[in-house]
């Protein structure tokens, strides 16, 4: 038997800056990391063919247009895959869930973030989730996801 029962693992809503490395923030990625300041998830989108581009890039890989800018999305998505990290890679940091979330607007855009506000045993592939943000500083707002009642 695995030594930890996932039903006993509470994934707390993050309220402080986590002890993870920070994004170095390129000209393309900086607006995406800062987007959560107003509680809205934004993903680069092509102004010509409306394709969402993530990770962000200055030119649309679908149609070749350079008319690309961050665009608000609903923040709703579906868990494509996830893992519950139980080993303490950062001393004292509790078990956490990392998920790849397919956004409702375009399934080949996966946003990576923690799933929180539930027990680890409740996280499943296919669960619908909603993005919120964990403020690190004014430039970096980390997306995290909570389960939407199904």
């Amino acid at each position, binding site marked *: 038997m695995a030594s930890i029962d996932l039903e006993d693992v509470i994934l707390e809503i993050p309220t402080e800056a986590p*002890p993870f490395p920070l994004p170095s923030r390129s000209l393309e990625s900086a607006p995406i990391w800062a987007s959560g300041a107003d509680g809205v998830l934004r993903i680069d989108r092509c102004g010509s063919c409306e394709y969402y581009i993530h990770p962000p890039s200055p030119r649309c890989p679908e149609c070749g247009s350079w008319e690309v800018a961050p665009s608000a999305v609903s923040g709703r998505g579906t868990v494509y895959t996830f893992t519950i990290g139980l080993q303490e890679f*950062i001393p004292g940091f509790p078990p956490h869930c990392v998920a790849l979330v397919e956004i409702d607007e375009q399934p080949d855009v996966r946003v990576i973030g923690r799933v929180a506000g539930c027990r680890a045993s409740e996280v499943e592939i296919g669960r619908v989730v909603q993005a919120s943000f964990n403020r690190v500083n004014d430039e970096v707002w980390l997306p995290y996801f909570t389960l939407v009642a199904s």
Partner: protein
Amino acid sequence: MSPRGERNAYVRGIGQSQVGRRLMRSEMSLTIEASLAAVEDAGLTIDEIDGLATYPGEMNIQPGFAGPGSPSVQEALRLNLNWFSGGSEGAAQIQAVINACMAVSTGLARNVLVYRTVTESSAQVGGRGVAAETPEVGGLLEWLMPTGAVSAVHWLALVAQRYFHEFGVTRDLVAEIAINQRKNAALNPKAVYTEPLSMEDYLGARMISTPLCLFDCDVPIDGSTAFVISHVDTIGDAPKTPIHVNAVGTALRHRNSWEQWPSPTLTASADAAAHLWERTDLTPSDVDVAELYDGFSILTLLWIEALGFCGRGEAASFIQGGRIALDGALPINTHGGQLSAGRLHGFGFLHEACVQLRGEGGARQVAGSPQVAAVGNGGGPIGGAMLVTAGLG
């Protein structure tokens, strides 16, 4: 078919340093030991080495990972080089070997020394935290580490969880990778973990990042592996069985970042393996032994499928019933792999392929004089493959 310049190269010599946990020897010391062993094994002198290649070369990354850069080794061995190369991008760790093949094929060098050195076990002594080592991350890691996927185990656990979900795989069905390799390691005098591993041990093991447990993760060690890659026109005076490079696979065709891959079975290993088979007349059924990267056990499963030994999603059933054991139809990771022999980081697989094709495996030698070996390196967005043979094949 495109020209196959890699066939102008062969593995003339192999060498390995002392290998183990917490050796507390310098990376240069291990590198020189492995390099001199490979040069001697090739029947050459250090003066006849005119090319040098390594993976990844000097890198400002976690201690013990990179080993010494090629200019440092050139200095230490006072090599007289016409060509040298180091770098972390390309077809996984064995890109360095493939670079050497290209160098001899183009005539830039005749005898290339290739090495990969790790001292990750000794570096763990008094190690610092993840965040202290890497305060800021860019490139592919920019999307992983800030959100808590701080270790490679998280990145591959995401792949494994999806793979398990899509193909109805459970942990008991993949345990054979770790269990079989532990059996093989018991026959390898250089392996670090040799005590038997049972199904109960595996299923009861501490979870690291679901669904991967302790025994799904490889073990950091210290050690250096080296090869001498030479031009085939020198084959006449090679003292040991020459190991021919039949084909290499270096492709990158899908979205191969750590999180946007199209499917768990379409990561870089799939591209490298497809490319490999495009460059040879041999087929998967010709392979006698396979040495497939196992930084995490899921990667070996994906290599088995990528190389076409079974269909997509079928690896968990393929490995049952002793098929991958030393006396099975397709022996895999005959030295114990990185899970049990230790993380020589990619180079251990080509080394073991050469050992098996030469018939130098001792207690772990696969019977029946294996003639063709497949080697896979890497995982996630990094994949490289080689097909090597004991004859011209």
